[in-house]
């Protein structure tokens, strides 16, 4: 059968891009401290959404938008 000659697929799947990040992760990605992230949210420069228990999350798109807009 032709299938016998096909190479075995052992490659690892590509990393899945995250949809949203915590404050700590966002701070690390932007290279700023936590206070600055909360300031950006308070000023409406970064839109955050709340997870089930009320924790703030920032979408990947928002982070990219902020970096691109500057």
């Amino acid at each position, binding site marked *: 059968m032709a299938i016998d000659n096909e190479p075995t697929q052992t490659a690892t799947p590509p990393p899945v891009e995250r949809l949203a990040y915590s404050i*700590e992760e966002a701070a690390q990605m932007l290279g*700023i401290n*936590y206070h*600055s992230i909360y*300031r950006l949210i308070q000023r409406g420069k970064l839109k955050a959404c*709340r997870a089930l228990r009320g*924790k703030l999350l920032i979408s990947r798109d928002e982070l990219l938008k902020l*970096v691109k807009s500057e």
Partner: protein
Amino acid sequence: MNHHQKPTVQQEQAAVEVKTAFAEHLNQFNASCDAVRDIEGNQSAIANDAFKSALLSRDQNKTIQTDDGTEWRHDLDLSKISSVCHRRIAGQIEFAVVESLSLKPGTEMKEVLNRGDNVREVLQGFIRDQRQVLRLWKEDLNAQVKEHLAEKYPGQDMSLVADSFEYKITQAISETYVHAQSQSHGMRV
């Protein structure tokens, strides 16, 4: 749960674990509370110094161009990233708190946070905004701790640990406010 009861061994362990897990947050939160307290406590002196700087300055003060295209003269720093600046328009002096924030990868935001012709009011607006930031931070931190406890200790009552954490950070903000009230009482620019 009766919060007057002695915490269980597991609750005590959880409290230590939470303190470790959120150590960086707590350090930064307390440092920010201290910074706001310093500005609040010294706002009259800061306003006086900024006003004097603006009156005496001609062209020697550093120029800062903000993202909206306006140009400001630096008067004094409030923190590593924010400063009080001024500009002259139609014979009047306009004051502003300007923030310069360097973002990865190599971009910089220079934004006017608060502005007006009364430097004291500009500072008060800045402090009010900082208090909102601390409240937002506090709410998020409490939610993060609750989520952390629920995931780490499923099905167990850790409300005493969460409440104790919340009390601690609420106290940090309250102390900032009380301190500022006592410092600024009776002072005028």
